[in-house]
């Protein structure tokens, strides 16, 4: 039975991540009075891309060729090491610092790959991504540190358990940390108001500019990894800040219920992201640091309150 849990844990993120991207797109379409593509469209896009030939620039080095695999693999490992539906299977990687810096490592390779092919846009995207990533790190780290201090543990699974039984006096700082985390989540996942995942304007892109030179299978991997990253952050938001509904028992009905609850929580988050993206405009690039500082300051205040 534990093997089953391990398999589910490993496959859950890559299996579900395209679905939530499709759901966000669908909700956004509905909010714009459009019919929108099916929520399964991202799966079809991946299949299409995997069946395509790819073009690789003559100037590209091994970094360009290997980065998609590194990035995708990191999201797989991270996806398997965070609390999703069960609190049972912690592993040595489930340390919050390890998780954050593994993801930063994948961002690093993405930025390198963006510059590697030598196109003007890739360089632009990488420079912007690193600017945003450097400023996001503070908020991300400190918001999770609040939880770690509250739970007196660096392990994500035990944080998740402790937060569920925290006294109500600690709820306010945890709430502040949640807002700080949410802002960092939007920046890391390349969503509004930081980046527009649907834009066709090459000059405004961040994430899309870095991957502009990719095609075919490698593009599919990168797109998939980006979807995984979204689900990882959504999963962390859902299970660290609202850690109710993780199953402690290894029976099929319990697992099914926990999976259902997990999907429900992510759906609520996706709805929030879709509504946000439909109701505001993207921020000017130079206003983004302000927002990221807010995330950082909120997290620092939360830490101050919890100590």
């Amino acid at each position: 039975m534990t093997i089953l849990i391990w398999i589910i844990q490993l496959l859950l993120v890559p299996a579900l991540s395209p679905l939530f991207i499709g759901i966000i797109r669908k909700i956004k379409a509905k909010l714009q009075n459009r019919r929108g593509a099916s929520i399964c469209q991202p799966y079809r896009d991946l299949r299409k891309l995997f069946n395509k030939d790819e073009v690789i620039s003559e100037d590209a080095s091994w970094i360009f060729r290997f980065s998609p695999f590194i990035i995708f693999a990191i999201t797989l490992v991270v996806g398997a090491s965070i609390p999703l539906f069960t609190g049972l299977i912690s592993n040595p990687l489930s340390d919050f610092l390890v998780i954050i810096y593994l993801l930063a490592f994948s961002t690093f390779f993405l930025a390198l790959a963006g510059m590697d092919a030598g196109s003007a846009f890739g360089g632009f995207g990488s420079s912007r991504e690193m600017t945003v990533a450097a400023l996001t790190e503070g908020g991300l780290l400190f918001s999770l540190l609040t939880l770690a201090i509250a739970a007196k543990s660096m392990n994500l699974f035990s944080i998740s358990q402790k937060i569920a039984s925290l006294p109500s006096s600690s709820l306010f700082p945890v709430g502040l940390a949640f807002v700080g985390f949410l802002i960092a989540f939007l920046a890391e996942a390349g969503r509004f108001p930081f980046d527009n995942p649907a834009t066709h304007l090459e000059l405004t892109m961040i994430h899309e500019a870095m991957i502009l030179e990719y095609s075919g299978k490698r593009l599919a991997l990168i797109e998939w990894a980006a979807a995984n990253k979204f689900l990882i952050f959504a999963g962390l938001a859902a299970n660290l800040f609202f850690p109710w509904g993780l199953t402690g028992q290894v029976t099929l009905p319990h697992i099914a219920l926990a999976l259902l609850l997990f999907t429900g929580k992510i759906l609520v988050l996706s709805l929030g992201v879709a509504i946000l993206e439909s109701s505001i405009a993207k921020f000017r690039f130079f206003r983004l640091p302000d927002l990221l500082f807010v995330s950082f300051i909120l997290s620092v205040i939360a830490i101050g309150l919890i100590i």
Partner: protein
Amino acid sequence: MIKIIEKFVPAGVRIEEYGNIYAYEMKVDDIVSAVNHLYFIEKLPLKLITAMDERKESGSFRVMYIFGIPKENLFIAPYIRLKGSEEFPSVVKTIHEASGYERKIKTFFGLDPVGHPNPRPVILHGNWPKDVFPLRKDFDWRSRPAEAKNDYAFTKVEGEGIYEIPVGPVHAGIIEPGHFRFSVAGEEIVLLEPKLGYKHRGVEKLFEILPLKEKLKLSERVSGDSSFSHSLAFCQAVEALGGVEVSAEAANLRLIYAELERLANHLGDIGAIMIDTGFSFGGSHGARLREMVMRLNERLTGSRYLRGVNAIGGVTKDISPEAKDSLLKDLEALEKDFSEVMAIAENSNSLFNRLKETGTLNYQIALDHGTVGVAGRAVGILNDARLDYPYAAYPDYDLEIASETKGDVYSRFYVRVKEVYSSIKLIEQALQKNHEGKILNDKKIELKKNSLAVGIVEGWRGDIVYFVATDAQGEITRVEPRDPSFLNWTVLGHAGKGNVVPDFPLINKSFNLSYSGNDL
């Protein structure tokens, strides 16, 4: 009529009268001061500088400087003849907006503007030989010159941390092709230089070759989104040449169609500006409202872009009384719909934060470059051909000029919003008026011989000018369409300077200039 003209013309000059244009020959040495006088002392708007190859008839090239006389619907055109010379004095040192016209004359006629500080070729690229001039009469339009390899020097910015980004002509989205060369310091734009010409199709040459009916079709295709305005300007010029009367009913219908075209494009642009800030709600509703007008167009005329509607002597499509009633109802619903969308958009701080103070165009720079239309009115240059050169049925209705003062994206956005409301009002008023008379004057068209005419129409971007000339047989020998984009492209770089690169697509969209109208 002649009285009005005489006050602008130096004494002792013989004035030639052609319909709505009064031309007079000046000595080559005197032309610069004469043009400066009209521009600076009389403050007449320069509408076009064009050249004609008349070496067969008179052994000379002719360069004409066409000025408009606002409110009178008249044009005044001093000109020079170049006999045995391929040089003419440049007026660019004092009149900056003449630059593009003179460069174009150099590129297409091979006449050298002496004293022009920057006479690089326009429109034609490095693969076109330097000594082949396509608008000269001895150039056969079917010939294909050998490919050349000329250089085109972009302005270089030097300094620490400056780098160049080449963008286009192929873009990530489906838009017209154009190349932009950015010199940036980090994200800030230090210099932006557009290079166009990728959609050059030889329109001016084709205008000389095609039969009259086809010329009309060609004018509809100069810039697809302005099909009606372009063909209307062409028709008006030809009607002036042929002395063709247009009935009051046809004039009224022309106003309705022209305003429908403006309405569709403004709604589309308002949505597109919002979508370029990422405000997808406004974007999708802008696209939806534009589509509603396009379908109205199709219902009324069978063409979404109002093609085949204009004819020399009137229009081909009437609007029945029942269609008028339902159009009135549709417009009322559209206005309500639009104001609801705008009410939601105006509640969005994040949207207006992006629009305000982005892409600000300086008033003096705009003035010096001859900026017209929406972009001009957004900095407070009050030009509107509907008021300045009243045509069709515009004199019958009141129209308030839509203007803003700041010259940023927000101003250009709001000029459009105001014009949406004024267009709807104009159409509603026009629909309630009924005139007797045929909508198309089917008198046989005979054009005046050795004559000139100008047609001017306020398209949705700005004024569209058509210059048409005939020869001794009454055949059209020269047509120059001047799209507002030809002037407004020159200020885009100035509006972009100092902004960050990710704001450029938004600035570009707020101008939404035509590539094909510029490239011809």
